[in-house]
């Protein structure tokens, strides 16, 4: 009996919190009062606390997965060692950087003077690596465009023609070859059929998001709130 009550509480309490906070969020969007502002300020702090707890869980997850890789000598286990060493090294550096660097809002717990190493890790390793992965997009766009622009029917033919016109219109050489009328045509494609389609989708998304919010708020859609508690 007590087990049954406990399992019910596990579901009803999160659903109740989600309902109250959801209604409060909607209320605060439409109505302004001093107490709502105070609660919103606290909600921001609470969000940060939750984020820190989530980070600890994620740290555990990474350690577990890569620790198992190393323990069982799975293929590429050396990279798991590298990830674990770098991750904990960065953690120690972050904990020891008491003085602010790189415009951070949160600082380390100890004053070990590791700011310059932290700065180096971010500026010389993290940012270039991140930018490198981002720049792969240029190549992927080319291969995706090749597939998208293959003519398989009337729809893809229209896509190819309009895409080629916009592409030429955006590039300086297009206007040089075809004259200013190409620029007018490009502007028309972007601001009339393209914008109309895009706004149609946006209206659908806005309506769909309200319906989804109502389903979550009133407990019809329970998975996002309950997670694994069902």
């Amino acid at each position, binding site marked *: 009996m007590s087990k049954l009550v406990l399992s019910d509480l596990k579901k009803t309490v999160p659903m109740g919190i989600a309902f109250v906070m959801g209604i409060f969020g909607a209320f605060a969007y*439409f109505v302004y009062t001093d107490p709502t502002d105070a609660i919103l300020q606290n909600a921001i702090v609470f969000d940060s606390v939750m984020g820190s707890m989530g980070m600890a869980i*994620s740290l555990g997850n990474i350690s577990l997965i890569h620790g198992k890789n190393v323990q069982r000598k799975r293929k590429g286990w050396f990279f798991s060692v590298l990830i674990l060493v770098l991750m904990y090294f960065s953690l120690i550096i972050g904990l020891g950087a008491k003085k602010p660097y790189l415009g951070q809002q949160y600082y380390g717990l100890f004053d070990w003077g590791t700011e310059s190493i932290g700065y180096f890790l971010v500026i010389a390793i993290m940012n270039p690596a*991140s930018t490198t992965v981002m720049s792969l997009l240029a190549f992927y766009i080319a291969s*995706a465009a090749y597939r998208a622009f293959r003519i398989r029917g009337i729809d893809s033919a229209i896509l190819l023609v309009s895409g080629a016109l916009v592409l030429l219109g955006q590039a300086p050489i297009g206007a040089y070859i075809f004259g200013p009328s190409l620029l007018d045509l490009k502007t028309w494609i972007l601001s009339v059929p393209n914008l109309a389609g895009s706004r149609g989708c946006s209206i659908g998304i806005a309506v769909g998001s309200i319906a*989804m919010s109502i389903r979550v708020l009133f407990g019809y859609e329970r998975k996002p709130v309950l997670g694994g508690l069902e």
Partner: protein
Amino acid sequence: MSSVLIDILVSQRPRAWGLWPGRIGSLVLLFVLGFFVILYLRLARKRKIFIRKLPGLDAVDEAIGRATEMGQPVTFVPGIGAIGSLDTMCGLVFLSEVAKRCAELDTRLIVLNRNVLVQPATAGIVRDAFRAAGKTEKFSEDMVRYIAPDQFAFAAGALGTFKREKPAANLMFGAFWAESLELAEVGNDVGAIQIAGSSSMAQVPFFVAACDYCLIGEELYAGAAYIGRDPILTGSIAGQDWGKVLAAVLIALGVITAWLLPGNKWLSNLLLI
């Protein structure tokens, strides 16, 4: 909402309390739409409401079945958005159904996360699905992987996972940004059946180009209601269709008034009260 933004908003208030100016029209529209959605959620309890099929959703079963036959894993990415994002919530709904089917068919599932709060939620959902299928022992913690908080560090980790694990099906539902094309192209490269869904209109073209099926815009929200085959939830889709009818009527009214009374903005002013 950041504390700085709250301070700015507070400084703009005309009184100590009241309705935010410019949001009353939205409030009325919200009530009207909410009425239709709740009405159809209730109507769906009494009678079956017809909803057109979404090919992308029917293909989810096919994709998981293919992975089962090939003995290869299914990868699932619930986007890179925060837990409070509606797209992420849709991703979690899709994940619960995908995990349930993977558990039933004994198919290996790999979930890749970027957000620290989405990670425990996805782990809970997958664990719950395996428990519900009576296969708790088949669930392992490394099925749900946290990769990295940085957008492109996450992308690099996910691409590496695709290359190493060679999934037969790659499912991506949620909030995506620039990494969407990289994930979809590499998924395509390893030969996975790919089904994606996003409400970001900047990312949908990439998914359309590189995936086998794509849920465009609001189809993601409709799909979240439809995928569980719950007749009550599908009722809400009929309710939101009335919202689109309302939007179409307002647009038509706006076009007619702009045509008959050029320069007169009474309708837009009314909506912006």
